[in-house]
């Protein structure tokens, strides 16, 4: 049990992911989940009111996975993300203002307007990229883990991928390589049930993605991805194993995306209404609040204060995004190649 009835500390406003002190940790977990939810809800509102932010894949509903996993990581540990990557970025500490500016195509965005939602990232936060080519990022995480092993840095890499990408050949190749080389890597499968409109029970021959771990000689567990504490426990075990040199693990998090594959997707064409209702009834933020109300250590008033603070951050982020400069014509041609003078001689 991670949570105790400790009294909230005075300096506990932001919290810290790896803090052993439960109040700090709980504050961080909630603050990040709430910020992801608010970022995505604000973005959804912007899309619905006509902001041309390009195709976006909302993370709403899956917040506990990104936050629970990243809570088990050190700042310098690596993460490779998917097309549904806003949550991973925020959980890993990317600022929401330049993220929103990126979605508005601004020079002040995380990627200077070159990437948009499907490439949004911040390498300084040790994110190898958000990536809409299924399975591609998994290989990058293998590479980062290999790099950590060769350079003896004690870093761990996390490969986030969806249950849909579990069908990609790259992912299978990567699991085998990570296992034979005993890489410091954690495969995190976010099983939200659907690859666009394709249900997992159609696309996956075995009941659980985690069952596949056995074929690669690594541990595989399936956890409740709507319970941030369950995700954190499983991720912590896997990260510890990776960091100790014992090799990779597979953690499958059962979760649900509340909305369509992207903003133009109609879930009523492939998901039963009762299923959606039941899944949304197991909301990770609501679950967290209920748990705090009954067990502590945080009070609902503290959580409301976090929500309110995040709301102000999102107001500022949207303002920052709207007021930022657009790229100019010359920016089209920058950063295609690294200039020779910037390469080591």
């Amino acid at each position, binding site marked *: 049990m991670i949570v105790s009835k400790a009294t909230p500390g005075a300096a506990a406003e932001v919290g810290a992911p790896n803090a052993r002190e439960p109040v700090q940790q709980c504050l961080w977990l909630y603050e990040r989940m709430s910020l992801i939810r608010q970022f995505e809800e604000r973005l959804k509102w912007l899309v619905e009111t006509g902001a*041309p932010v390009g*195709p976006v894949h909302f993370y709403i509903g899956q917040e506990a996975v990104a936050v629970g996993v990243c809570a088990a990581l050190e700042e310098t540990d690596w993460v490779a993300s998917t097309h549904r990557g806003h949550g991973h970025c925020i959980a890993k500490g990317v600022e929401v203002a330049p993220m929103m500016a990126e979605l508005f195509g601004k020079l002040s965005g995380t990627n200077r307007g070159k990437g948009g939602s499907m490439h949004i990232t911040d390498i300084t936060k040790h994110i190898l990229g958000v990536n809409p080519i299924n399975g591609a990022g998994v290989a990058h995480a293998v590479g980062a883990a290999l790099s950590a092993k060769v350079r003896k840095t004690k870093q761990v890499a996390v490969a986030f991928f969806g249950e849909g990408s579990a069908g*990609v050949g790259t992912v299978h190749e990567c699991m085998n390589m990570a296992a034979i080389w005993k890489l410091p890597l954690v495969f995190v499968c976010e099983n939200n049930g659907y690859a666009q409109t*394709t249900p997992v029970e159609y696309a996956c021959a075995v009941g659980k993605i985690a069952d596949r771990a056995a074929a690669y000689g690594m541990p595989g567990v399936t956890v409740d991805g709507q319970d941030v504490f369950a995700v954190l426990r499983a991720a912590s075990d896997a990260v510890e194993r990776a960091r100790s040199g014992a090799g990779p693990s597979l953690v499958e998090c059962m979760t649900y995306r509340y909305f369509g594959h992207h903003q133009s997707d109609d879930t009523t064409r492939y998901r039963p209404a009762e299923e959606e209702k039941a899944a949304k009834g197991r909301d990770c933020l609501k679950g967290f609040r209920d748990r705090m109300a009954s067990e502590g250590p945080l009070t609902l008033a503290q959580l409301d204060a976090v929500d309110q603070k995040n709301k102000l951050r999102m107001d500022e982020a949207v303002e920052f995004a709207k007021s930022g400069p657009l790229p100019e014509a010359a920016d089209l041609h920058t950063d295609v190649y690294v200039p020779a003078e910037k390469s080591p001689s």
Partner: protein
Amino acid sequence: MKESTALRELSFGPSINEALRQEMRRDPNVIVIGEDIAGAAGRAHLGFVDAWGGPMRATRGLITEFGPERVIDTPISEMGFVGAAVGAAMSGLRPVVEVMFVDLIGMCYDQIINQAAKMHYMMGGRVKVPMVIRTAYGTRGDKRSYGGGAAAHHSQTLYSVLAHIPGLKVVVPSTAYNAKGLTIAAIRDDGPVVVLEHKFLGLQAKGHVPEEPYVVPIGKAAIVRPGKDVTLCGAGRMTHLCVEAADALAKDGIAAEVIDLLTLNPLDEETIFESVRRTHRLIVVDEDTPVCSMARDIAARVAENVFDYLDAPVKTVTAADTPVPFSAVLEAIYTPRVEQILEAVRQQMG
């Protein structure tokens, strides 16, 4: 007296849908396979069928007529299912594979360039691979106030890297009419054919499409607008750009001829050469990036064969030599524009 039946019009996606449907009716060996081509796979018992139908909705409704044995949703496994289509084609089927976006050919490039394209040749002509790969490509290229498009992994054109491969036929429809005819031609072809479908043709592509099946021949370009002063040549959305440019030039008394390439490989050189012999000027408009592009390939072929007929150097108007940027203001200048074509004409006429 007014016509009682107006000519039937279709837009781009529905015309491809009709081509697939009619060929599937004609030949039970034609199957379609790809990601979410029907959607909600395996959920008929819950009342869900036909949930999506591809980016152009070109496969929508096929599963209700032909069932899941011939309309096959796949896991996200491009390398596997494109390779499976190669094997299926070698053993009696005529698969029509959908690779959702051309950007994803990176995931299955081996099966396309090393397997499908070369099998017939490598086996001394004794094996046939009658398969079609349909894939969506292209940028929107309009300049909205902010935000952007689908960026570097979902907006590319990339047909140059397909047309480059000997053994692979590559076609690029520009209208609902030629989309239906080229799709049917591709399905009936005994070799591998890639059909590139532009994502943003919109109303420009809509037009009369006969209800009966017909073939637009592979390897034949079309003169979509005759002219005597300059030849503009494009494919897909670029053809419409050339027509827009020709309209603008007409106001200045310049009669531009517009060629719609339709097939990139094998290229209909003769239609281009014949036009250049009459107009003495050529501008090639290409949505792909310039290095090793169709634009420069055509320019080289013209220089080698009809150089003496040219009154000015061949000009090319291509995408910028960069990845596709996200920001709308950058995407708008990444993609070829009408004013660039007009500027090229002015330079040639100057």
